C-alpha cells in the first residue's frame, strides 16, 4: 500500500543557511511518526514545505502514491494535510466557530448568490464542530472566544480545525511545548484514537522522552539533513541524542552541592495582574538564598511571566511585598532593582533583552551605560565601552564578526550569550533567568547552564523559570511548582520525581502539601 506521504530529496535554502539538505521522509498510513531534532535542525522548515508555506528548491512530494505539488496551504488542505503549528494560528478576538470556518466559510443558502458578501452561517458550522468534537473526543465550545480559552483548549481547537477540513494527515509541531505532562499524556491518547480512525500523524518534538511514549517510528534530523529512521524498540535515549547532536551528549549537568547562605530574595503574598486585569499571580511566597538555585516549574501561562516582570520592576504589583537583600523593591523601577544587584535574563530576548538594530557593543552596556565608567557627565565614554565589550565577547565566546555588528545579525544562541554576558558582567547578587535556553542549540544550552551554575557557586541567588522540566530538574536545588498564579509546593530537587512535579503542574495537590 502506498505510503500516506512520501517526500524525496527535499532541499531548501535560505540566505546563509541550508535548511533542508536532500531530505527523504516517508509517512505510512495509520502511523504516528515522530520527527526529532534540536532547534534549528530543519524540522519546521520541512513541515512548512509539506504544508505549502514554503516551496522546496528541489525534491518531490507524493501523497498516497501520486506525485503532487503543494504551492500553498490551500493546496495542502485540499490534499488532506492539516497542520497544528507550534505557535497557534488562531485569531484571539474571534470565536472558535469563526476561527474554524475561516477561509472555507459556509454561508446561508438563500444569500449564497452574494458570494463573498453573503451571510455567514455560524449555526451550521457550530453544529458540525459539535459533531466532530463528539466523534473524536475533543471537547470544545464553538461559541467560545479563543482569547478566553486555555492553551490546552486552543490546541484542541487547532486539531478540530484540521479535522473540519477533512485532514487525513495531521502535522503536529511541538504540541507538548505548552502542556503539562498530564495534558501531554491526554494528547497522546487523542493521537492514538485519531490514528485508529484512519489518520496518519507526523509529530515534531525535541523532547526525547516523548517519542518513546507515542511514536511508531522515529526520524532524526540534524543540521538540515535526515540522519536516520528507527523504531522505538531499537533505540535508546542516548542513541537518539547522539543522532540529534552528532556527538556524545551528556544528558545530566554536572554540579556540586549547593551551599545556601543568607536570604537574598524574599517574596511575600505577591499579587500581580496581567494586561487583561486578571489576577495571574495570586498570593505567591518564596525565598531564595545566596548560593542556591530555585527553579520554578510550570507550564507557561500560569503567571510566571508576570511574576518575573513584577520582580524585575517591569510590571506593577497589586499587593504584597518583594525584598532584595532586605530592601523592599515592590514598587521600584527596573533601574533601581538592577542597582540592588539583580541581573535578569528575560524570557523574550527580542522583546526585552536586546535592541536588535543596535551593535553588540551597545547591547552589552544596555543597563549600565549611564554611570561610570561608561559615562562621564552627560557623555558616553566609548573607549571604555568598547574595551569592556571586547572583553565580554571574548570571555563569553560570543561569535560575532565585531562588536559593531548589529545584534539582529547574530544567531539565537549568540544573541542569548550577549544577554548572559551582559547580565553576568556585573556583580550578581540575584540572577533571575527566565526561559534562558528557549530555542537554542545544544551547544549554547550547555554553555548557559554552566554559566548559571557558576553564578550560583560564586554566591548568587538564582531564580530559574523554565517550561522545560528537564532543565529545571537538572539545574535546580529546590523546585517550586507554579499553577494558576500560586506556588503549590516547593520540593527538594534531589528527591523530586517527574510524576510528582507533573501532578503539581497540573494542579493536583497532595494533602500534606508544604506551601
Amino acid at each position: 500500500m502506498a505510503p500516506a506521504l512520501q517526500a524525496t530529496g527535499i532541499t531548501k535554502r535560505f540566505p546563509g543557511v541550508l535548511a533542508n539538505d536532500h531530505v527523504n521522509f516517508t509517512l505510512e498510513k495509520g502511523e504516528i511518526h515522530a520527527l526529532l531534532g534540536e532547534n534549528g535542525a530543519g524540522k519546521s522548515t520541512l513541515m512548512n514545505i509539506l504544508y505549502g508555506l514554503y516551496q522546496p528548491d528541489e525534491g518531490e512530494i507524493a501523497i498516497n502514491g501520486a506525485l503532487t505539488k503543494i504551492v500553498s496551504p490551500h493546496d495542502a488542505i485540499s490534499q488532506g494535510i492539516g497542520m497544528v503549528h507550534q505557535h497557534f494560528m488562531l485569531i484571539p478576538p474571534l470565536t472558535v466557530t469563526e476561527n474554524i470556518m475561516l477561509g472555507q466559510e459556509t454561508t446561508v443558502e438563500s444569500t449564497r448568490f452574494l458570494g463573498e458578501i453573503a451571510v455567514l452561517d455560524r449555526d451550521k458550522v457550530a453544529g458540525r464542530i459539535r459533531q466532530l468534537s463528539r466523534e473524536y473526543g475533543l471537547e470544545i465550545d464553538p461559541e467560545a472566544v479563543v482569547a478566553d480559552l486555555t492553551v490546552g483548549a486552543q490546541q484542541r481547537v487547532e486539531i478540530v480545525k484540521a479535522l473540519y477540513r477533512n485532514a487525513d494527515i495531521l502535522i503536529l509541531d511541538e504540541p507538548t511545548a505548552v502542556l503539562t505532562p498530564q495534558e501531554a499524556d491526554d494528547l497522546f491518547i487523542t493521537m492514538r484514537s485519531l490514528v485508529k480512525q484512519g489518520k496518519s500523524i507526523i509529530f515534531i518534538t525535541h523532547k526525547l522522552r516523548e517519542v518513546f511514549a507515542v511514536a511508531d517510528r522515529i526520524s532524526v534530523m540534524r543540521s538540515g539533513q535526515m540522519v536516520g529512521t528507527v523504531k522505538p524498540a531499537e533505540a535508546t535515549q542516548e542513541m537518539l541524542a547522539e543522532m540529534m547532536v552528532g556527538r556524545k551528549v551528556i544528558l545530566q549537568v554536572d554540579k556540586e552541592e549547593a551551599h545556601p547562605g543568607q536570604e537574598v530574595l524574599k517574596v511575600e503574598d505577591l499579587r500581580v495582574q496581567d494586561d487583561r486585569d486578571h489576577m495571574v499571580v495570586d498570593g505567591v511566597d518564596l525565598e531564595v538564598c545566596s548560593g542556591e538555585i530555585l527553579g520554578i516549574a510550570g507550564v507557561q501561562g500560569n503567571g510566571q511571566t508576570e511574576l518575573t516582570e513584577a520582580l524585575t520592576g517591569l510590571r506593577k504589583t497589586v499587593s504584597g511585598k518583594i525584598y532584595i537583600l532586605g530592601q523592599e523593591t515592590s514598587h521600584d523601577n527596573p533601574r533601581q532593582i538592577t542597582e540592588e544587584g539583580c541581573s535578569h535574563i528575560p524570557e523574550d530576548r527580542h522583546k526585552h533583552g536586546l535592541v536588535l538594530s543596535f551593535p553588540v557593543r551597545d547591547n552589552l552596556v544596555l543597563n549600565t551605560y549611564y554611570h561610570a565608567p561608561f559615562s562621564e557627565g552627560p557623555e558616553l565614554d566609548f573607549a571604555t565601552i568598547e574595551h569592556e565589550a571586547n572583553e565580554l565577547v571574548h570571555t563569553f565566546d560570543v561569535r560575532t564578526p565585531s562588536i559593531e555588528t548589529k545584534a539582529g545579525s547574530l544567531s539565537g544562541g549568540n544573541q542569548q550569550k550577549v544577554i548572559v554576558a551582559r547580565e553576568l558582567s556585573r556583580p550578581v547578587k540575584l540572577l533571575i533567568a527566565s526561559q534562558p535556553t528557549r530555542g537554542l542549540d545544544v551547544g549554547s544550552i550547555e554553555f548557559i547552564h554552566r554559566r548559571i551554575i557558576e553564578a550560583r557557586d560564586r554566591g548568587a541567588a538564582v531564580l530559574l523559570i523554565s517550561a522545560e522540566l528537564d532543565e529545571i530538574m537538572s539545574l535546580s536545588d529546590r523546585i517550586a511548582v507554579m499553577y494558576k498564579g500560586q506556588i503549590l509546593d516547593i520540593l527538594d530537587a534531589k528527591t523530586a520525581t517527574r510524576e510528582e512535579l507533573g501532578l503539581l503542574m497540573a494542579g493536583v495537590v497532595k494533602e500534606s502539601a508544604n506551601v
Partner: protein
Amino acid sequence: MTATTQTIEERRSSLKGAWWVTPLLIIFGLAAVFWLVNLVIGGQCDLKFCVPGTLGQALRGATPIAFAALTGVVCERSGIVNIGIEGQMLMAAMVAYAVNVFSFQSFQHMMSPEAAGNLSRFLAIIAGVISSMLLGYLLAVVSIRYKVDQVIGGTVINMLSLGITGYFYRQFLAENIPAGPGTFPILFPSLSNIPIIGPILFAQKPLTYVMLICVVLLNYMIFFTPWGLRLRSVGEHPRAADTLGINVFKTRYNAVVFGSIFAGLGGCWFTLEQVDVFNPQMTNGLGFIGLAAMIFGNWNPFGALAGALIFGLGNSITATVSIFRPDIPSQIPQMLPYILTIIVLTGVVGRSTPPAAENQPYEKQ
C-alpha cells in the same frame, strides 16, 4: 468548559449595561450640552428652531468625518494604517469640483440645466471616488509591496495630494472658471418643514443619506459576511489567515482600495454639497478627525458614526455660538473641534484595542 457569550466584537460595539442606558445617556448628554450653550449665548437658543437646526447641522457636518472614519475602519481592520485619508479627501474634492464644472459646460447644451447639473454632479462623484481609490492604491503598493512604514506612506499620500491639488488649482482652476451647476440640493425639501425632526432628518443632502446607508452596509459586511471575516483575520493575525489559504496581500490591497471609496465620497461632500468652489487645503484636518472618530468608535462603523456625530455636534454648536455671540473672537470656537479631538484621543485610547496586526508589513517568509 463554559464560554463567555459575548464575542470581543460584541463587547466592543456595545456600551455596558441594559439596552436603555445608552439612549438615556445620549439624551441626557445632549440636554446638558444645550443648556450650557444656551447659557453662553444668553438664552437665545429655543427648543423649536435652534436645537433641531443645530442637530441637523451636526449630522451634516458629521458626514465627511464619518466617511473618513469608515475608510479608516476598513483599512485598519485589514491591518493597514491610513494616515492619508485627508489627502484622499482633498484630491477627491478637487477632482469632483473640476469634473462638475467642466462637464456641466458640455452637458448644458444638450439638456435642461437641471438634468445637466445632476448628471455632471453624478459624474463628479464617480471621478472623485476614482481619484481617491487611485491614491489608496498607491498607499497599498507602497505599504504592502515596498513595505514602507505605513505612517510614512500616508504622509506621502498627503503630500502628493497637497502638491497636486495646490499646483493644479493655481495653474488651472484659480481664474477664469466657468460657472458650475452648484451643489446638490436638499433631497426632501417639503419634508424638512416637519417640526423638530424635519430639520434633523430631512433637510439633508444626498451624500448624508449615502453615508448613513454606508454605515449600515459596512457593519453588515464586516461582521456578517465571509469578506468581513477574512478582513478581520488579516488585520488581527495575518499569519494565521495565511495558513488557511487566505491571500493576505490581496485582501489588504482590496481593503485599502475599497475603503478609499468612502474617502472619495467624503471629499466630494466638500465641493458638491458644502460649497461649490474649491480651496486648497479646504479639508482642514477633517480626515484626521475622522481617524479619531474611528478610534473612538472602536473600529466599528456604528461607533465611528457616533464619533463623527460628536464632532459634528461640536462643530455645529461652535457655529451656533459664533452666530449669537459675535463678540467672542471666532478663533476660539474654531479651535474647539481640534481640542475635542485631542480630548477624545486621550480619554478613549487607553481602553480601546486596535486590530492587532496594524502597521506591521506582512512578511511571507
